[in-house]
């Protein structure tokens, strides 16, 4: 898909391609424009080329074709140490033979900064991550979360305008990860830096980012703010990758005003929004979020089509009920309902009718 630069183009990937071995393209025609102060996340499955993009931006890999521009300047020929880009590595890469203080002062020393200025900046950066009392420790004497903060402080200590983070929270446990997500987001807002963040955790991508670029197979599948990505996936890969999704295969019966009527394999008719199906008779995959499926007739919009379903499994999850249904011959249709007062628990074997607002079902091209 084409991305019109709706920002100032602080970082621009312009038709960038990358191949390591001259046989396969790892990055295929990447076009991306990142605005100043933006928090952009690259999200995608393993091997989709996220790290490669980051490494090209940082200068450790060269683009096989195309231009990468930073503040309008092409940087293909600029060596990494002159790019002034802060970077947080997945394994933190704190220098093991230096103390925390020396680690932070290293980027300032190589810039020829005086001692007192260095000390002030190191203190400021460590205070920022509440780690000043650890200044004389070695990295090996710190816990994973603490090392993570030091790595963050080191990437920020020389005031870079752009910070790259490659799965910086991958090695932390869930609780600490959520806490650090909050801290990184907070630092991003208070410092006004531009962040390019790589993760394959979609929850992380959705909570932190201004925009998310979903990668698959060396291409951006969709570039959008989190809510749009979740609510309006552009293709079946994004729909599948972000959040949980139910898929129903069928054929377009009619298209009218962006609304599609889809006939399922078992003959039933359902409503959907036509996203990238255009013609009657086309094959399609309709995707519906589990929490948008209704089974109480009074909650359905009037005139909505309903489908027969049989309850296969009912799981009590505390705040949610998760019910697995057989719908149109498929056994893995899932619905989620909130545990509100008076909510009825469904029994396996029970026959119900389900439906949804046409806005919540999206008819996509089969991938």
């Amino acid at each position, binding site marked *: 898909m084409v991305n019109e630069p709706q920002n100032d183009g602080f970082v621009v990937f312009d038709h960038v391609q990358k191949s390591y071995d001259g046989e396969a393209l790892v990055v295929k025609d990447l076009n991306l424009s990142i605005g100043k102060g933006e928090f952009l996340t690259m999200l995608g499955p393993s091997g989709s080329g996220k790290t490669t993009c980051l490494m090209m931006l*940082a200068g450790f890999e060269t683009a096989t074709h195309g231009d990468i521009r930073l503040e309008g300047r092409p940087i293909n020929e600029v*060596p990494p140490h002159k*790019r002034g880009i802060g970077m947080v590595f997945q394994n933190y*890469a704190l220098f093991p033979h230096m103390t925390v203080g020396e680690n932070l002062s290293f980027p300032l020393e*190589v810039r020829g900064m005086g001692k007192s200025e260095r000390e002030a900046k190191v203190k400021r950066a460590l205070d920022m991550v509440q780690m000043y009392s650890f200044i004389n420790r070695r990295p090996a004497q710190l816990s994973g979360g603490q090392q993570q903060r030091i790595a963050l402080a080191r990437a920020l200590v020389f005031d870079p305008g752009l910070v790259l983070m490659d799965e910086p929270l991958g090695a932390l446990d869930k609780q600490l990860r959520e806490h650090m997500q909050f801290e990184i987001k907070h630092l991003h807002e208070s410092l006004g830096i531009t962040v390019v963040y790589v993760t394959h955790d979609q929850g992380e991508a959705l909570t932190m980012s201004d925009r998310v670029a979903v990668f698959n197979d060396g291409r951006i599948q969709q570039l959008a703010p989190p809510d749009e990505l979740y609510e309006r996936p552009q293709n079946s890969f994004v729909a599948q990758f972000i959040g949980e999704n139910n898929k129903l295969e069928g054929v377009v019966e009619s298209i009218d005003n962006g609304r599609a009527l889809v006939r399922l394999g078992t003959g039933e008719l359902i409503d959907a929004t036509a996203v990238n199906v255009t013609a009657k008779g086309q094959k399609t995959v309709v995707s519906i979020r589990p929490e948008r499926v209704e089974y109480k007739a009074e909650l359905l919009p009037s005139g909505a089509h309903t489908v027969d379903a049989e309850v296969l499994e009912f799981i009590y999850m505390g705040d949610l009920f998760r019910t697995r249904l057989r719908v149109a011959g498929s056994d893995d249709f899932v619905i989620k309902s909130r545990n509100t007062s008076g909510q009825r628990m469904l029994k396996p074997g029970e026959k119900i009718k389900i439906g949804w607002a046409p806005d919540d079902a999206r008819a996509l091209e089969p991938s």
Partner: protein
Amino acid sequence: MANADMPADTMLRTADGQPLKSALAKASRKARIRAFLLVVPLLIFVLLTFVIPIGQMLSRSVNNDQFSESMINIGVWFDENPNAEPDEAAYAALAADLVYSAANRMIGNAGTRINYEVPGTRSLFTSSGRKAKNLKAPFKEALLELDEDWARPDLWAAMRSASGTTTFNFYQAAVDRKINADGQFERADENSRIYMTLFGRTFALSVVITGLCLLLGFPIAHLLATLPLRKASLLMILVLLPFWTSLLVRTTSWMVLLQGQGVINNVLVSLGIVTEDGRLEMMYNQTGTIIAMTHILLPFMILPLYSVMKTIPPSYARAARSLGATSWTTFRRIYLPQTVSGIGAGGILCFILAVGYYITPALVGGADGTLISNQIAFHMQNSLNWSLAAALATMLLASVLILYWAYDRLVGIDNMKLG
């Protein structure tokens, strides 16, 4: 012992009332015995092949029975008359000893022992020994009549020091000291001061060789650690190839390459780089020793370095570069410090091997390229002065141990990584 003076009732006990410590000891005793039995063969092996021979070497280096085992009476006189000039009683004891040792064919041994200290006196003992049974009192005149040399004070000083059961004479010889007429030690004559020079040369050459190994080995180890697996294993085979070739073959091939009429000189001459008369002397001198030994010891530098470099993830260098360091600064401040443990291990390994190396310097070293080990071998095989050989070897061992200790103090032995 904190436990001993702890009141009995505060001591931790198991459920059935036994003190926790003794219960624990009992429980783990069986496992300990089994573990010990497993290492017994190794223990015996180490004892037989390492501890005992080194102990023997140490005792041999101070062993002094060569003279004293046959010359008993004079030994008694020396004990009874410390610091006294030899009198008639001394000569009488000496004459009796000469008769005894000649009869038991031990006179040669005794003479050899004195000969180490006072060169040229072995024949004095053997010839006097043959005639000793005809000697009559007064023995002093009789012996002096046989040979004037029996009055020499340095001879008596040497006999006195050789009559103890242990001696440090061999160590004194090993540091180029000798006994003078007053029984004092002084520096040996200019032209017989060989051991200290040899020790000095051995250490100097070892430092040079270790340095060259580091210089050559560092980039190779780095390549090995960073190349893709297939190329790295090919390179590794090249590094290990010398291990699969006989040491003698490698050394002789260096001789073929480096000698005056050898391959390298012939090529240089035919290319006109050197003239026929100006052929380079790269063999039978220190250059030959350095070249051949550097080649032989190189893998011992590369392997520990490689094993350390293999564990340094490339992200450190990348992090340094992204923080603004040039590639040189990155190498100096980030990469090099992390390889110190490998440099230390490889350096110590190369140095210790070089210090004790024997065969290569013997073959290619010529006159000024031989090392202390060649001198030790000479005393083992040719001069048969085993005690001196043992003393030299002990000094070599001690200096290596001192080096090891110094390394431990400076770098820390825990930081050494051999693989």
